């Protein structure tokens, strides 16, 4: 099982991927983006929590109309070189003002967490066998930042006193 970090703590995962739970007994399901697009209407009135899982080429703006219904967006990473998810999270959080959970899934590695958190991710699935002992300190790798971002911290704008 992957290990889930949420709000900087390891927690038990209360969500299931729909493929792991086809009957929908669980009350919180994550549906792949393509299937969500196809089956959106039939899920809308289902009485559990819904999340959507997107890949690097899926357009986050398509989700904006769904924010009333979905409370989680899972963004896939195929490896450390995959960088599109950072922009997807940034846009979800800042441009489209999504307030639910943004979760990094797939090949998520400790040393990406600092960047991911700054782009708006607040949950991270570390794959099986990940070194969990060192993971939680990743968020504090740097105590100062140069860019404006969703997190509090020093940045160009504040530093310049405006």
């Amino acid at each position, binding site marked *: 099982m992957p290990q889930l970090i949420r709000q900087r703590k390891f927690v038990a995962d209360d969500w299931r991927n729909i493929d792991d739970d086809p009957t929908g007994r669980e009350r919180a399901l994550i549906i792949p983006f393509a299937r969500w697009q196809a089956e959106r209407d039939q899920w809308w009135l289902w009485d559990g929590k819904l999340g959507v899982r997107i890949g690097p080429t899926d357009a986050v703006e398509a989700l904006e109309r769904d924010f009333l219904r979905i409370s989680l967006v899972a963004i896939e990473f195929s490896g450390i070189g995959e960088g599109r998810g950072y922009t997807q999270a*940034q846009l979800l959080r800042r441009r489209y003002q999504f307030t639910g959970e943004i979760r990094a899934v797939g090949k998520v590695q400790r040393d990406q967490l600092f*960047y991911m958190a700054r782009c708006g991710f607040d949950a991270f699935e570390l794959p099986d066998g990940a070194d969990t002992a060192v993971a939680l300190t990743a968020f504090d790798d*740097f*105590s100062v930042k*140069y860019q*404006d*971002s969703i997190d509090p911290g020093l940045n160009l*704008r504040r*530093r310049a*006193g405006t």
Partner: protein
Amino acid sequence: MYVYDEIDQRVVDERVAQFRDQTRRFLAGTLHEDDFRALRLRNGLYIQRHAPMLRVSVPYGLMASKQVRMLARIAREYDKGFGHFSTRQNIQYNWPKLETVPDILELLASVQMHAIQTSGNCIRNVTADHFAGVAPDELDDPRPWCEIIRQWATLHPEFSFLPRKFKIAVTGSPQDRAASKVHDVGLNLVRNGAGEIGFEVLVGGGLGRMPIIGHVIREYLAPRDLLAYLDAILRVYNMGGRRDNIHKARIKVLVKAVGPAKFREMVDAEFEKSRDIAPVLTDAEIARVKSHFVPPKYELLQDEDVVTGAGNEFRNWYQRNTRKHKIGGYRAVVVSLKSPQRPPGDITDVEMEKVADLADQYSFGLVRSTHDQNLILADVRQQDLKAVWQALQAIDLACPNIGTLTDMIACPGLDLCSLANAGTLDVARQINERFDNLDYLYDIGDLELKMSGCMNACGHHHVGHIGILGVDKSGEEWYQITLGGSAGGQDAALGTVIGPSVAKNDVPETLDRLICVYLEQRVESERFVDTFRRIGVAPFKARVYAPADQAA
């Protein structure tokens, strides 16, 4: 120059701690090699042919003497006593040990230096005109803008895992000495109709496997929008750039695929949509950074004639290795790292320390590195030139060849680099032996020779008046010759391949034949590249491939 405040210092200190921990985990086996690779590259650490190579960032080529002394110390204690200045104005060490790299980074941090983002698929060192601040033709000093961009790019949360590396250059003179047209983004300082400073923005230029001149996508960008607009460019690239093929991943491929006009629309749309979340560069922040680049306390001096009555050697050096300064009574001195026995761009620890001493004594304690692999003492009083010349001569750094054929750019090539297909250092040595007569070099005049050991084009061969590209032909080293390239300003151009590549030992002879054609054909004071542009490739080609007995 820019002096770190507490924030800047904490960033580099915490970076050292982070990398020390990453190295520890890698050596302990808990950090996978592939993951460590992506991380160490962000600290400029390559695993090379013989040992790791560490590339240290020299932002826009500016160093304090204290920093140069530290670079010397690192060369002595952690390398084999020398460093190599690269075409990105950075310095590279070719023999550090992996486990000592955190200690090296700590020493660098103690003098406000780092190796952050000198490699990897992220925003690299921002480069500038090496005569910034002293060039008479300058509209505005590019360095404060470079420093602002450096800070914005450092550990950028959204743009640290790009499809490929990303290089930005800023130039403040019409005579573009920063090669801004062959960068992922080139920023040229301009004035708008109201006389306000801003940027002309070029995108999608580059060398490597697909050399291409950048396209203007914004004629005037206001300073307050600088970072917002860069954000927009990077976001379009981060989402749209190819990630399936490393050779097609640079922004230039995306720009070419969609077309510059469409790319411009995409960036403009992103820029507009992001107005609410994009960083605003405030006047206060611009003023804060600019306050670090106020001119030094120049004395009130008159230009003087220091060459009349001087010996030939000094006169040659003055003419080739010093440049006009915007302040009367001063000259900028180019410290040549291109003497015949020296691999281009190499400098020893002792030489670095001497240059630092000279900077303290004669040039306000500052040294610059250039993208053509030399150093500069930018603010030398004309009355001190002779003393500086003598001191440089004593340490083999006064070779009066700047701008000539032997002031060639060369990457480290097959001797040191694991990417290279062919050697460059041997060839450089052979060229130096063949063209060892200064009078002949001066007769040939301004000629930019640029050599790369592989397609990645670290030696910028495409934009050399003469370019040499090392290629591998069934395990043998061969060299393809291009003519007519240029990196600078209005006449930026890519070279034309003259024909089949030549064998290693034939490179000097080939150059000789090219030069002969030029000397026969040139009109008045035409440079090599001007003659080439006028007469075309055919006469050069005919001579190079003529049988030996008909070539003379």
